[in-house]
């Protein structure tokens, strides 16, 4: 179960809506009490423009988190003692499934999950209307990503 605060969910939904029709991406940091949404830049369009052979998709159907944002997240882990609770991204005009690309990119380039303890949240929206969000995490026993329910933190 991934428990998210109501504010966190609102913030990632707002980000998904603002980036539409492109995919958004970011991280949810947590220190045990508070949660912090870190919006990241999706650099997929830049990479696609530079090298369309290596990056055949543009930002409407793919995301690549800006490496500068990613290092900042890691610094926050080091200096603030927070953990990366989840990475999130959106699927504009698509359902909230963990796609083949999501799976392969989460295990590239070594064939094992890069963040085995971090949940991936996928937000589905159609036009600028949120449809649903689903969460997926690595399951040791089946060696695959499986859906985990999303709950609201604080709700009993």
């Amino acid at each position, binding site marked *: 179960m991934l428990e998210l605060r109501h504010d966190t969910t609102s913030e990632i939904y707002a980000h998904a809506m603002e980036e539409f029709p492109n*995919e958004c*991406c970011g991280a949810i940091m947590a220190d045990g009490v508070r949660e912090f949404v870190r919006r*990241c830049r999706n650099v*997929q369009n830049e990479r696609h423009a530079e090298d369309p052979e*290596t990056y055949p*998709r543009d930002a409407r*159907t*793919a*995301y*690549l*988190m800006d*490496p*500068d944002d*990613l*290092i*900042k997240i*890691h*610094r926050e882990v080091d200096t603030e003692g927070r953990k990366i609770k989840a*990475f999130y*991204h959106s*699927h504009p005009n*698509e359902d909230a499934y963990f*796609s083949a*690309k*999501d799976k392969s*990119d*989460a295990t*590239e*380039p*070594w064939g*094992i*999950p*890069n*963040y*085995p303890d971090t949940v*991936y949240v996928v937000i589905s929206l159609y036009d600028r209307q949120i449809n649903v969000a689903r969460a997926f995490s690595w399951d040791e026993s089946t060696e695959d990503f499986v859906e985990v329910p999303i709950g609201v933190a604080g709700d009993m």
Partner: protein
Amino acid sequence: MAATVRIPTPLRKLTNDKAEVEAEGSNIESIIENLEANYAGIKERICDEAGNIRRFVNIYLNDEDIRFLDGKTTAVNDGDEVSIIPAIAGGR
């Protein structure tokens, strides 16, 4: 020159579970060679057959992506921190 190298979780089985190791070298390339000498197998994880940094591997010198510095020839100074961090990507 000794730098501290941050190792990502999936590669820590090569470094006896250490998240940070020391490496010697005057640039990123020689740091990688020095890592390989101490932790066999790590170079092929970081670099492809042609010797280029793998596409899904980000290497930072302190807080700068070496892609925007001088790549593998980026100079490393004593006390610098080199971070190896896999990219975050996906799509529909």
